[in-house]
């Protein structure tokens, strides 16, 4: 005997809720995402050179940074006072050669303190020249001016 098969019914899969699901996922990702906002300052530190003619000139003002002291032009300043002095110097209006500041650091100065000084200089349009700390043989630690006093300005 031949058995008559029932014709198959074509069933539509209900995909309406897929959209809801996907949009819920999007909303979840948007709300849980923490956008990374990096804040900082852009500086160009020139590579060190053995060329004597490239070494920083004595004319450039030097900022001597110690663990608790900051000296600029024979004056001991706080970081706030240093910012005021930089503002008064109006570095942005000066030619590049007159915007160079040499930063001289004691070996034990923390990055926190160094950062305050560097960002203040970059913010006011100064050009940074690095003074490298070196081990000076028998006499212990010292500082030696190494890189040329040219470089990019801070942003």
């Amino acid at each position, binding site marked *: 005997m031949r058995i008559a098969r029932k014709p198959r019914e074509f069933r539509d899969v209900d995909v*309406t809720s897929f959209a809801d699901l996907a949009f819920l996922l999007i909303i979840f990702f948007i709300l849980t995402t923490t956008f990374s906002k990096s*804040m900082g300052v852009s500086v160009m530190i020139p590579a060190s050179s053995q060329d004597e003619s490239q070494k920083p000139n004595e004319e450039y003002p030097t900022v001597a940074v110690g663990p608790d002291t900051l000296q600029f032009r024979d004056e001991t300043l706080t970081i706030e006072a240093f910012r005021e002095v930089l503002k008064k110097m109006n570095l942005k209006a000066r030619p590049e050669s007159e915007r160079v500041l040499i930063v001289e650091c004691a070996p034990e100065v923390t990055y926190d303190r160094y*950062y305050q000084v560097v960002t203040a200089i970059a913010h006011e349009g100064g050009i940074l020249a690095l003074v490298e700390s070196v081990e000076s043989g028998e006499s212990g630690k010292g500082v030696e001016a190494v890189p040329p006093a040219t470089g990019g300005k801070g942003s």
Partner: protein
Amino acid sequence: MKIRRPRRRQPLVPLTSFGDIAFQLIIFFVLASVFMKESHIRSRPPPSPDIDLLEPALVSVVLDEDGRLWVQGEECAFDALEPVVSSLLGERKDRRVYLKMDRARPYREFSRVLAALAQSEAELVLIGEKAGSAQ
């Protein structure tokens, strides 16, 4: 005469493509996201009022609170920093390198990082946090 009104049809909005659009959006966001490679590194950036928001850079160097050095999320020796960063920068025009250093590291340590990056002709982006923001 009785006018026969046409039977109102229930309007049917096809929603099938909505799902496609939503998934396309998800795929776009997933592909366009830059995932943090340095979430495992502990480093407290120094605060300063003189900093601004910056565009992201391709190369990132971190000096963590234990004095260990990381490049692109992987630990790196101090002596290897300059060649590693130089090879990452290659001949690129954009030579910006994100430099995130712990606020407590001493100059004798972080100056080595600065000197090595200066040798690789990188433009340094010194990362900090806006003074007064949550730490």
